[in-house]
């Protein structure tokens, strides 16, 4: 249950609506609900990577389903954020194969470097460090997800460079 209420400006652009309609067309006409997960991803990407209740209600309206059906789904899956998050989210895989290759030390390093704790955005809202479960890149450990992409074979030097690149706006988050 979300107690704190954050507001979000909703902007379903024409381009976004075209994409949503395309996704809906992947399913039989009476199965619009099936498009829920892909539509949530698209809508979230276009709204600073999080989904307010209002935005979830909007998705429900588009898919002709009850708002609660959207809330249930959003809260089940880990990739949907229900509060504003750091712009650059460093999601480190912290499952065993990555731990064997030192991801825990690397997370400590990153947090120290950014001056944050895991799960807290930096004050400027630029960065957030999170530990997530297996991302399916065990052979390329340690690694993290940043936007739609994986950053693999990480080292402290690579982390330093990534932070610089993020600050310089050189990192693409979404593959559109």
């Amino acid at each position: 249950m979300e107690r704190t209420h954050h507001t979000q400006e909703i902007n379903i652009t024409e381009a976004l609506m075209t994409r949503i309609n395309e996704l809906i067309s992947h399913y039989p006409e009476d199965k619009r609900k099936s498009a829920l997960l892909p539509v949530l991803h698209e809508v979230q990407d276009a709204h600073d990577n999080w989904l307010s209740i209002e935005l979830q209600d909007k998705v429900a309206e588009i898919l002709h389903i009850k708002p609660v059906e959207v809330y249930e789904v959003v809260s089940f899956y880990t990739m949907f954020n229900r509060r504003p998050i750091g712009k650059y989210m460093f999601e480190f895989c912290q499952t065993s194969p990555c731990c064997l290759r030192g991801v825990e030390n690397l997370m400590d390093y990153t947090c120290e470097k950014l001056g944050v704790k895991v799960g807290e955005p930096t004050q400027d809202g630029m960065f957030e460090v999170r530990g997530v479960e297996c991302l399916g890149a065990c052979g390329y450990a340690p690694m993290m997800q940043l936007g739609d992409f994986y950053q693999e074979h990480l080292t402290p030097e690579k982390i330093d460079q990534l932070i610089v690149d993020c600050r310089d706006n050189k990192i693409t988050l979404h593959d559109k």
Partner: protein
Amino acid sequence: MSQKILLDKINVPGIKTYEVYRREGGYASVEKALKTLTPDEVVEEVKTSGLRGRGGAGFPAGMKWSFIDKKSGKPRHLVCNADESEPGTFKDRFLMEYIPHLLIEGMITSSYALGANLSYIYIRGEYMWVYKILERAIAEAKAAGWLGKNILGSGYDLELYVQIGGGAYICGEETALIESLEGKRGNPRIKPPFPAVSGLWANPTVVNNVETIAAVPWIVNNSGADYAKIGIGRSTGTKLISASGHIKNPGVYEIELGLSVHEFMNSDEYLGGMIDDRPLKAFVPGGSSVPVLPANLIYKTANGEDRLMTYESLSDGGFATGSMLGSGGFIVYNDTACIVRNTWNFSRFYHHESCGQCSPCREGTGWLEKVLHRIENGHGREEDIELLWSIQSRIEGNTICPLGDAAAWPVAAAIRHFKEEFEYHIRFPEKIKNRDHFVAEPFEKVRHLVAKQTV
């Protein structure tokens, strides 16, 4: 060099693109199947091949196909399970990222065999860029006439879409995957009815792993009998192994089933041995849910036979001295690794991924994690080992879906083979304060502290 079926062309420059893939003989199986074979003949070839489900369960694929309900007259669906999330497993991503058209070709040929006109690939949400790769590849295939109405003038229609998940390991369970594909929470369904009778939108559905479907084009192009010649006994064909942990060459490898574990671990063609001079301590052969084995049971079975990379050999000895091939997630540990920490880590994973629908899994996975966390952090009690054993045995077999078993087995195996390490954590909490406690002082050096005195 052993035979490659899936990764044969992986090093051809540009194989990601439709043009190169086609030039290299891609989509031949679609032509052959649609023009010269009936759907049932394709199913027969797959049956003959002995191909087993590559997602982990190892159920014969042809047999699974033959269960699909064709009598009801309802639309049928093929759904590809690309929700690869089992810790230690990353082979499907490799296939989809580097040779996406192989999966699409497999989907078309397999959908034809099943009489499915609307098929989906369900890919995990975190593989977002691979999702885009597949979307583009599907568009290329469609533009080239391999999808849509009346493919190759055969009268067969097929639409294929890729659907993205939202971040949930449980959606790799086939009925949870179907629920998720319907836009719902990933709660596994109660079976029966099985998807073959009532799956996606209550229509007959087959769910197959990426690697399983990717093997179909070769089987159709050559023959089921040729495929069955590779491998040993009921472990036919080749298998992708995802290798990670303390080894020199982590990555994805295609092996002929029947290769010895020793050769796979040590030859330069494959893993190239350990990462440094620290000795091998344990390995998990089939992804995090299968039992971990100690060094003395890795290369040889309990009977002293060579341990082979087959379904049968890896499970030789049952859970007492064997494990499982599972999804082929091969995780290797040297003596710096702590089995208790590793077990806690896996338990945290299953706790995090439990859907929460049935009570033993919902409550039990969290309990396991909490007890293991206490032991790993120096707050264990002597009775906790017995407690862990009891909790895991009470989850196993009592849940709706196999996640309960997957959470129970690693704990059971760790206690079975590494009980002394648990005792060490409980009796010497000050020695395990640092999370790298076995780096400076591996367990072998302190084993005497907990070893049973023999008089």
